[in-house]
């Protein structure tokens, strides 16, 4: 095709590509053109002779593609001429549309990068020198210089912006490092010079319009500087696994650590002040403002080796503080309703981030050395309070401004903790004095922030209380947990004032609510009552956080400063006690007869919050034992302590139990409140003094009866957990007698209800009636509650009771063969028994009987379901599809996870072993698993978990399996190797490792044919595993398991290993030059040094330790991966 014809063809195709009817055909013409050989001269002709932007664009991208594809065919000189041609083209065509110009810059950058590693330093410098030259001439040329520099930075960076050029990871990595070393900083400096000129210009004529289109040089230089500041420096960044390319989206900003060589440009007062001066001047342009903010955030966070010494650090901090002071004044003096909303909030967020960056990387000692620190911190305190005020003004901005507040809050708490640590760590007297000074200052700041926070939360009620928005299922104390923990930490610096404030507000709101409740008679309530509820809710939540920490698993202690405050106050004036009394009077007022009009106007949220508060409070305060404290406040002992110490804890508990019962009825239709009340019951059970007092209380037996009687009307979700809580409380009764008494009570209650239905002679005629089914299902759930409460202490007792019904449960599956809902409950019950029974406290006969029942359960389930066809579309509509399959999966998995049963049954020749049950279950399960089920992540993970565990636990049984079943199992493992759920791959590698290890050892004392069935599978795994390691995406977290897997497989299949590698490498995308082949062969040889040595392999049985990833092996393995993936992974 001659050039003019080509031009006409491309012009036509570009025009046709605009129309839907001709687009496909036209695009094909363009693609074919760009892929044809030797098109560079054609493209140059197109560039020279067409004014159509899309033609120019395709010509430029054609050149890029051709150079990447045919690089070897060109002489270096041709390449340089082409580059020069493209640069000149841009110079000669100043009015190119931006996307064409950008494509041309990209072509230049790609060409430069493609030849980089083979170029001499002088050749590498060509484009750089061009840029320097352009930047030193007129404005038009400067623009081109900046744009070209930006294209170079993007193309050489590792941040996912580089073009895909079909070259190895190693290539990308080396060019990036070389560019970083040679040109990056110089480009940064050159750009700073342009920025400086622009800034001078901006300041010389005040009031001019500042926008990207008016000030292209300003805008381009800012964008480029920001890009360079985000560079992932080789010297300081986290090591990456060879062959891992950054995703395009992987572009979030992070704190960069700059190498010391950047000191002159970054630790530089002029540079810093340039950005601070610029910031207010460019506010009219969103993009520039955003970029400058990002630059400032990086400059504020400078730390580490970039500072020569402490003095330099202090000097820099001091410079940043001065710059920030002006910004803070600017933003704090302005209110969100006066300023442009979006900018205001974004500036606020950015400034808070700058402050956090500045204060979080340096020690208290360094901060103390900064002369401006108090001025600065004072302003930050004002800003913190200001941020809170603003967040309650505009609903749409409220969450974002709260986010900005969170940044500051985190910073405050860190400073407080660092100062406290500096004081307690026995530092030098001077530092201790400084830190004490600082802490004194925080003391005065903290209450200002806490007070404002409380006010703001109440203010925000006007946005939140009436909103009818979909809840995300999280409670405020979860959503704002981090924020509340920080607020509590600050509040405890000055507890007296905080408590005073909380008490005043609580008292007022409770009185107002009580007065409303005493007058309402129709169940309606005006909006102001909703605000009172919202206020009460937040006051309860804040009080909860201030009063106690959420300790899990350890004794919760009363915060030290609160205990101290209590010690200084008379009992009647004790703030902690009075606030609690206030809250209990509130609980009393909202615990009502569920049919009353007042009850209808009560807030379930407030009930929920109160019971949440009580859960925390009971853990920490009720029967608090003085032994845990140096000196526990006598007020607290007297008010909440044990009777033996003269305390009134028991009467508080009685009060709580009474209220709990009323609320259980009142909120019987609100599962959230009920779940929280059960959590409180659990807390009663977990704390010995509370539990024992409760068990001795006259209220307890009727409470148990009450729960069991009302189970059927309560929501399904709480059935199990309610019985579980009660059983748990009973199980830890102080004496066996009390224990037996209560267990008798609860088991009798269950038995009378369940056995009556079960043994009814008419059961077979009425089993489908809703009443019978409901009784059966409730009964099963009560048993399930018992199963959940199993511990080593109560296992014998609960087992004895439940085992009387084991066969009846199985029978239910038979009777209800067409009722998956009943079958699932039975399967669930057995699964929870497996999970929670303490098998070692049972006799071998009991365990064996349990297994017999499991076998019969699985068989009955299989008879009822095997081969049953259901409409699959129905199944998919379910919230948890295929729940019967998933519960069987879970059951078998739990059985595999039980430890010690095999040894226990070793001396009982007739006992049914867990493995018998598992393999029988697998036989039933595998035919039920369909491919579409494995697309559901939960099912897939469970399934692979089961298969891996099975293979790990019983590798020896694999050879005995029927061929079909074995193939099926192995197929699941092959499917798991490169699964996108990390856990699935992880488990798969572990399972293959176990299998390979077994095969290795079995070959020591079995004839070769013994393993004949496994061998092809192992060979396949060996191949798949190496494919994964050499060519595919690999997560860093898989390196260890994949490494052990390789070692085990190679030991097991040495014969297969040798030839395999050559075969794999032959299929590589990278052309294997002799040099490359050498590198690969070296890498494999190096890998071999990690293999277990020949004096072990084949000589004795290998243990997991022989193939474990020791640090030495990991290093070898990572080097191997670098060696191979660096050249085999291509982008």
């Amino acid at each position, binding site marked *: 095709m001659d050039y003019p014809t080509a031009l006409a063809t491309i012009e036509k195709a570009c025009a046709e590509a605009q129309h839907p009817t001709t687009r496909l055909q036209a695009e094909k013409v363009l693609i074919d053109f760009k892929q044809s050989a030797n098109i560079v001269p054609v493209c140059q002709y197109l560039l020279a002779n067409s004014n159509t932007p899309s033609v120019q664009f395709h010509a430029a991208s054609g050149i890029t593609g051709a150079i990447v594809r045919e690089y070897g065919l060109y002489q270096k000189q041709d390449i340089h001429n082409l580059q020069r041609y493209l640069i000149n083209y841009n110079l000669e065509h100043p009015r190119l549309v931006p996307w064409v110009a950008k494509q041309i810059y990209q072509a230049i950058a790609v060409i430069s990068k493609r030849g980089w590693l083979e170029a001499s330093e002088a050749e590498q410098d060509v484009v750089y020198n061009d840029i320097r030259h352009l930047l030193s001439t007129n404005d038009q040329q400067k623009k081109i210089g900046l744009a070209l520099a930006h294209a170079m930075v993007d193309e050489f960076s590792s941040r996912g912006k580089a073009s895909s050029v079909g070259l190895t990871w190693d290539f990308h990595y080396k060019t990036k490092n070389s560019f970083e070393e040679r040109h990056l900083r110089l480009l940064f400096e050159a750009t700073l010079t342009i920025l400086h000129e622009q800034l001078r210009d901006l300041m010389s004529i005040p009031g001019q319009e500042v926008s990207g289109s008016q000030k292209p040089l300003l805008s381009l230089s800012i964008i480029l500087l920001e890009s360079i500041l985000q560079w992932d420096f080789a010297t300081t960044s986290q090591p990456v696994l060879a062959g891992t390319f950054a995703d395009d989206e992987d572009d979030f900003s992070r704190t960069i650590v700059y190498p010391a060589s950047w000191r002159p440009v970054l630790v530089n007062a002029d540079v810093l002040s340039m950005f601070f001066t610029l910031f207010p001047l460019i506010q009219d342009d969103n993009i520039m403002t955003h970029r400058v903010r990002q630059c400032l955030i990086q400059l504020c966070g400078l730390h580490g080796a970039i500072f020569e010494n402490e003095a330099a650090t202090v000097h820099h901090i001091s410079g940043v503080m001065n710059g920030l002071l002006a910004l803070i004044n600017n933003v704090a003096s302005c209110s969100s309703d006066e300023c442009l909303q979006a900018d205001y909030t974004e500036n606020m967020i950015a400034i808070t981030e700058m402050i956090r960056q500045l204060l979080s990387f340096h020690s208290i000692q360094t901060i103390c050395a900064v002369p401006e620190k108090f001025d600065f911190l004072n302003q930050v305190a004002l800003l913190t309070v200001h941020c809170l005020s603003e967040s309650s003004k505009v609903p749409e901005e409220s969450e974002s401004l709260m986010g900005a507040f969170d940044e500051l809050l985190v910073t405050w708490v860190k400073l407080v903790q660092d100062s406290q640590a500096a004081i307690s760590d026995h530092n030098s007297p001077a530092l201790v004095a400084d830190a004490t000074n600082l802490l004194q200052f925080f003391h005065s700041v903290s209450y200002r922030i806490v007070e404002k926070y409380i006010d703001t939360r109440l203010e925000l009620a006007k946005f939140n209380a009436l909103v009818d928005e979909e809840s995300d299922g999280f409670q405020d104390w979860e959503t704002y947990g981090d924020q509340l923990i920080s607020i509590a930490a600050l509040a405890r610096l000055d507890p007296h004032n905080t408590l005073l404030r909380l008490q005043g507000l609580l008292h007022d709101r409770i009185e107002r609510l009580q007065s409303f409740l005493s007058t309402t008679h129709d169940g309606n309530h005006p909006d102001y009552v909703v605000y009172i509820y919202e206020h009460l809710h937040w006051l309860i939540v804040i009080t909860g956080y201030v009063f106690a920490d959420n300790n899990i698993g350890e004794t919760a202690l009363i915060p030290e400063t609160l205990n101290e405050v209590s010690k200084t106050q008379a009992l009647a004036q004790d703030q902690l006690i009075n606030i609690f009394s206030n809250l209990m009077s509130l609980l009393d007022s909202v615990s009502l007869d569920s049919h009353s009009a007042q009850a209808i106007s009560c807030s379930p949220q407030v009930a929920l919050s109160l019971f949440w508060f009580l859960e925390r409070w009971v853990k920490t305060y009720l029967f608090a034992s003085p032994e845990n404290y140096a000196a526990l406040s006598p007020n607290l002992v007297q008010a909440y302590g044990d009777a033996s110490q003269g305390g009134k804890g028991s009467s508080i508990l009685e009060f709580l139990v009474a209220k709990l019962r009323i609320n259980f009825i009142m909120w019987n239709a609100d599962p959230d409140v009920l779940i929280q009340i059960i959590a409180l019951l659990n807390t009663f059970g977990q704390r010995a003094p509370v539990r024992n007092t409760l068990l001795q209380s006259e209220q307890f037996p009727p409470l148990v009866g009450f729960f069991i009687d009302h189970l*059927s009307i309560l929501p399904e979700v709480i059935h199990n957990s309610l019985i579980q809580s009660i059983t748990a409380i009973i199980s830890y009764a102080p004496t066996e007698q009390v224990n037996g008494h209560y267990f008798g009570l609860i088991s009798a209650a269950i038995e009378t209800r369940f056995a009556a239905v079960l043994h009814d002679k008419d059961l077979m005629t009425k089993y489908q009636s*809703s009443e019978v089914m409901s009784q059966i299902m409730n009964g099963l759930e009560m048993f399930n509650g018992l199963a959940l409460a199993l511990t080593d202490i109560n296992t014998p007792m609960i087992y004895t009771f439940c085992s009387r019904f084991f066969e009846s449960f199985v029978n239910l599956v038979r009777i209800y063969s067409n009722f998956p809902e009943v079958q699932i409950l039975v399967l669930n019950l057995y699964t929870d028994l497996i999970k929670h029974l303490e098998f070692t406290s049972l006799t071998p006969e009991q365990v064996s009987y349990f297994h017999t029942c499991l076998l019969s359960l699985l068989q009955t389930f299989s008879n009822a379901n095997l081969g049953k066809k259901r409409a699959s579309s129905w199944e998919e509509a379910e919230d948890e599809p295929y729940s019967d399959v998933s519960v069987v999966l879970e059951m078998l998995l739990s059985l595999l996870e039980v430890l010690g049963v095999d040894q226990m049954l070793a001396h009982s020749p007739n006992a049914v072993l867990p493995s018998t049950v598992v393999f029988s279950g697998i036989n039933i399960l595998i035919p039920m698993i369909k491919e579409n089920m494995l697309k559901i992540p939960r099912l897939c993970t469970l399934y692979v978990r089961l298969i891996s565990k099975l293979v790990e636990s019983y590798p020896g049984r694999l050879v005995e399996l029927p061929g079909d079943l074995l193939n099926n199992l192995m197929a699941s493992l092959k499917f798991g190797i490169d699964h996108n759920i990390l856990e699935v791959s992880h488990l798969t590698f572990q399972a293959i490792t176990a299998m390979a290890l077994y095969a290795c050892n079995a070959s020591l004392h079995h004839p070769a044919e013994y393993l004949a069935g496994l061998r092809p599978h192992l060979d396949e795994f060996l191949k798949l595993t190496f494919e994964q390691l050499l060519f595919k995406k690999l997560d860093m977290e898989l390196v260890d398991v994949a490494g052990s897997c390789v070692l085990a497989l190679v030991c097991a299949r040495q014969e297969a290993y040798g030839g395999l590698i050559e075969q794999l490498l032959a299929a590589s995308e990278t052309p294997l030059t002799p040099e490359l082949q050498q590198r690969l062969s070296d890498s494999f040889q190096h890998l071999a040094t990690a293999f277990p040595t020949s004096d072990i392999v084949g000589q004795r049985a290998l243990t997991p330790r022989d193939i474990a990833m020791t640090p030495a092996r990991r290093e070898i393995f990572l080097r191997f991966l670098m060696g191979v993936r660096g050249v085999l992974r291509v982008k």
Partner: protein
Amino acid sequence: MADNHDDEQHNIQFEGTSSGASTTFPMQCSALRKNGHVVIKGRPCKIVDMSTSKTGKHGHAKVHLVAIDIFTGKKLEDLSPSTHNMDVPNIKRVEYTLINIDDGFMNLLDADSNQKDDVKVPEGELGQKLEAEFDDGKDLLVTVIAAMGEEAAISYKESPKTD
């Protein structure tokens, strides 16, 4: 999900002729069970998802039900205060031996050898598989579900071999 208009037209409701036992009974909304049944818009449904929500942060709980019509497979939803009562259909599931397929209807035999000829072959893939397996000469057991005067086959399996 297939929309079974034909099915709905063919199913004649025999409400007046039921044996006197009521076809539904009331239950407090909050006590309904997932995988259980409920009547929504006059149709007997199986509950596939159940969640609670609130009107406003301090409002009382409402139950959001997602359910599928047990006869048409159509998805239905309902939102009611959790303290309100809803109707639960009385459901009966019976397994029959399939004797013949005649013009889209199945000839069925119950355990007491009573014949039943008024249940259609299910629509869609399930029905196609059923016909194919029946044509292959397999002995099939069909489960028929009945509620509120309607009936339909919901699943089938090969009857266990008796040696």
